[in-house]
């Protein structure tokens, strides 16, 4: 045994020492693992403290340690700390191994003897494993300064502006004809009741005019190749049938277009739009799109009114889909959410009972630019309701649909209640399970609503029906609910019911995640690198998330995440290059016989097959280090740094204590 291994067992105060005999473990390692190369084994109160680290550095220098094993917390917490300490003392940082005896031993077990025995085994595994570590150098790759932001809602807008303001290029890709996202559809924002459009529009205009932002609307990212710092992104630009370089956005085409269709997207079916249209007045960019499906010219071959009247000859019926390739260093995904489809809860009557509305329909009713010019009226378009019920948690906090809380629906419902009172003076009933108002000014807003005379009924609504049973119910919607505060079933007759639907991941969130190579939770929300400490990064280097794509959140939180993701990206760009963990696969070409088992296994296309030499090769820049090809190579010709067969199998020998010599009696 030629290695000189230093072993350091951390007490972590009483976090470890309370359940593991740390002195005993260190003493055991010094005695029983000496023949495996352990030359020193110490225990210390806090290994991660500067004094603890100095202990290691001193031993490396004075004892000439060639390997270091620290038994402490999870490598996800302090691996970097101890690697850096080793590097300071002149030892290659990758010759250090951190084994977890806190998260995986002391915190999860209750029997001190068993926990101590397990800590010894875990440490023994680390000692065996570290012997097979190789000195490595991190892979340094340059960062391309351009950034791709996907999704032009408020989170994406914020991120794009922050980065563009710092002086680097941003490509903002949006699927719809205009940026703005859901926020553009809202009337007021809680709890301040700012006009949504008033605060959003200036930002949209800034995006449209920003010299560093290339705005690509009506376009989708269809492919992402490469890796952090060096992504190659394929964007598919759908045809607008409008030449944007000629269009002035004058709106004549929209005015002259003879055909109107129901607007299912922006006006959620409540209003109509022309076939060539801008989704809303403040749309950015200002160019319209032509809806090919409904266009008379495309259907019948005649019309072309838009073309006839366009003063700049910007209409182009021949326009084709365009494929654009971008080079970017980082990507921010801000693709937002879908509204829960309340049709899935048939007992709430959406679609069957005309005066049941969704929250987004209600937003459009309230909006001065909406189909009713801001008049809160019933489905007939004229009658002002005298009583309105607002049902919370529709599709949220419900095991049949989504178990999670949608986070925005309490406040949204309070906002609706206020708007109803303000616009109609109607009686308002809010049906809630729990009132959740944790944001700044939110609780105060709730109290304001209480003072405005809104009725709050605590209980989950069982049913909304039109079957009158009692006097006074005729001609009304009847909400059947258990009022849990008085412990009684109630039937409340109302003119109008608003379903405060929850948020859910985009219907295509999983496919999009696949394109970008990031992971989704079981629900479909994108998973952040760390739920507390790294909320906007993902497990995939160079890809960040912002806004509701990560989970339900309101506008302030989305803006904060947009800015946070931007800050992370700007930091990366500033560094100009990034050091990647050198966990990579490589193929020994003398032993590769080109069987081509591995070729199709790599989702990152990192394995190339050279037909001339009949040998496969791993491109280290594309390899992400998962090790699948290493495990699959039947010839054993592929090895993986950091997780080689020797490292794994020797760790196993150590864990099973097969490395110990029998004790002499």
């Amino acid at each position, binding site marked *: 045994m030629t290695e000189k291994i230093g072993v350091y067992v951390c007490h972590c105060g009483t976090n470890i020492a309370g359940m593991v005999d740390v002195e005993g473990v260190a003493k055991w390692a010094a005695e029983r693992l000496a023949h495996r190369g352990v030359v020193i084994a110490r225990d210390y109160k806090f290994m991660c403290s500067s004094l603890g680290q100095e202990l290691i550095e001193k031993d490396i220098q004075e004892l000439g340690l060639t390997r270091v094993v620290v038994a402490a917390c999870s490598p996800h917490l302090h691996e970097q700390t101890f690697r850096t300490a080793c590097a300071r003392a002149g030892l290659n940082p990758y010759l250090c191994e951190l084994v977890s005896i806190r998260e995986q031993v002391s915190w999860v077990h209750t029997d001190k003897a068993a926990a101590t025995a397990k800590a010894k085994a875990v440490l023994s595994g680390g000692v065996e494993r570290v012997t097979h570590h190789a000195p490595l150098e991190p892979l340094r790759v340059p960062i391309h300064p351009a950034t791709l932001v996907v999704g032009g809602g408020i989170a994406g807008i914020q991120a794009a502006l922050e980065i563009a303001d710092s002086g680097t290029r941003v490509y903002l890709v949006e699927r719809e004809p205009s940026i703005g996202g859901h926020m553009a559809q809202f009337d007021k924002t809680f709890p301040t009741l700012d006009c949504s459009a008033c605060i959003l529009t200036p930002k949209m205009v800034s995006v449209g005019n920003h010299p560093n932002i290339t705005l690509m609307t009506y376009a989708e990212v269809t492919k992402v190749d490469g890796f952090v710092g060096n992504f190659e992104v394929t964007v598919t630009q759908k045809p607008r049938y409008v030449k944007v370089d000629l269009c002035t956005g004058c709106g004549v085409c929209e005015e002259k277009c003879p055909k109107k269709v129901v607007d299912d997207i922006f006006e959620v079916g409540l209003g109509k739009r022309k076939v060539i249209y801008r989704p809303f007045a403040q749309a950015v960019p200002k160019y319209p799109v032509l809806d090919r499906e409904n266009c008379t010219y495309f259907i019948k071959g005649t019309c072309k009114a838009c073309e006839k009247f366009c003063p700049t000859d910007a209409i182009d019926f021949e326009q084709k889909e365009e494929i654009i390739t971008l080079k970017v260093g980082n990507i921010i995904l801000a693709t937002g959410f879908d509204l829960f489809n309340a049709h899935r809860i048939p007992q709430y009557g959406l679609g069957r009972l005309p005066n049941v509305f969704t929250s987004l329909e209600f937003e459009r009713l309230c909006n001065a630019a909406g189909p009713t010019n801001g008049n809160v009226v019933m489905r007939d378009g004229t009658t002002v309701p005298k009583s309105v019920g607002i049902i919370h948690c529709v599709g949220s906090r419900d095991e049949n649909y989504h178990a999670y809380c949608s986070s925005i629906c309490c406040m949204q419902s309070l906002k609706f209640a206020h708007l109803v009172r303000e616009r109609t003076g109607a009686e308002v009933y809010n049906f809630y399970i729990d009132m959740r108002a944790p944001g700044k000014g939110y609780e105060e807003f709730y109290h304001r609503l209480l003072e405005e005379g809104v009725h709050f009924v605590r209980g989950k609504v069982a049913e909304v029906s039109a079957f009158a049973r009692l006097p006074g119910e005729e001609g009304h919607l009847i909400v059947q609910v258990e009022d849990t505060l008085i412990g009684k079933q109630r039937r409340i007759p109302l003119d109008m019911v608003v379903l405060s639907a929850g948020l859910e991941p985009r219907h295509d969130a999983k496919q999009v995640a696949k394109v970008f190579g990031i992971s989704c939770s079981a629900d479909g929300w994108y998973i952040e690198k760390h739920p507390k400490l790294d909320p906007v990064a993902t497990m995939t280097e160079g890809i960040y998330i912002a806004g509701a794509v990560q989970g339900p959140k309101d506008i302030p939180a989305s803006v904060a995440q947009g800015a946070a993701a931007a800050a992370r990206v700007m930091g990366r760009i500033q560094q100009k290059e990034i050091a990647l963990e050198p966990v990579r696969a490589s193929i020994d070409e003398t*032993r590769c*016989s080109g*069987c*081509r088992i591995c070729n*199709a296994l790599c989702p990152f296309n990192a394995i190339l*097959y050279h037909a001339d030499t009949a040998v496969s090769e791993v491109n280290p820049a594309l390899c992400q280090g998962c090790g699948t090809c290493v495990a*699959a190579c039947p*010839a*054993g010709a592929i090895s993986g740094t950091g997780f080689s*067969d020797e490292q794994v199998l020797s760790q196993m020998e150590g864990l099973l204590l097969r490395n110990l010599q029998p004790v002499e009696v």
Partner: protein
Amino acid sequence: MTANGKPKFAMYWAAACGGCEIAVLNIHEKILDVDANFDVVFWPVAMDAKYKDVEAMPDQSITLCLFNGAIRNSENRHIAELLRRKSKILVAFGSCACEGGFPALSNLTTREETLRTAFSTVSTDNPQNLRPQPNYTVPEGELDIPHMYSVVRPLDQAVPVDYYMPGCPPESEQIAAVVELVIKALKGEATLPAAGSVIGAGHSTVCDECTRTRNEKKITGFTRIQDFRPDPALCLLEQGILCNGPATRNGCTARCPMAGVPCVGCYGPTDGARDFGGRLMSAVASVIDSTDPQEIERILDQIPDPVGSFYHTNLAGSLLQASKPTWEEDQHAAHHD
């Protein structure tokens, strides 16, 4: 014994089919070199010799011993130990000596089951249900019949081995080359490889020598050559035929797959692999083209005998070596020995 000063040569046939012996004779005129350079002192299949003659030789007096066959019974073990003692260079010769070979597939069954199959099934004419007995008295005296073990073992689990020469049987060209190398080494004209090495084989896999066209692999089902006619120019595995070539050490010139017969893996694992079948299972399963557990099961149903397929000639040399019941019987027997 011999005064001609030539190094001594021995060859022994333990639990094996005899193919290894034939392969040695198949080196044609080079067999004359063996005779010219060695004094053949023990080779039961070729010349008469008695165990007691070997026992009488001084230790380490045999220079080269090619030992083929697995350790199936107490006689195999006894001779392995004897030849180890008497030989300088002991070569595990052929798949059976290296890794148990085909005989080791009986490690899937207990000795009792094996004996029952051999002596008591309907296809056996054995009305008195006779079984071989370890001891038997005849007028001339008491006979000890070699005791059959539950677990078949490769040679190196009985005694330390210097070199491994795989193959079922080893290719005659490879044997000739090895013989030539040893002769040269004896004359000081060449050096032998490091002890423990695999000799007479390559360092990559059978695919290296197979000229069938290979593509990216995606397997949607398994079949056998008796059930369909494979494309003669295309990789057999891609056609759903379990060919062990990708995991098997080269050296055979890919004879089987080139002839349209899937490789059974007789040259054993490559240098990096600890368990031939484990490696092969990993590779083959990885390229099954399905993400649906039920469909994967349906595809795997087409491999009726996974151990037989993936450990065709390697079971005794694998990590588990024998099935749990076989081991239990073996241990039980050890306690009662």
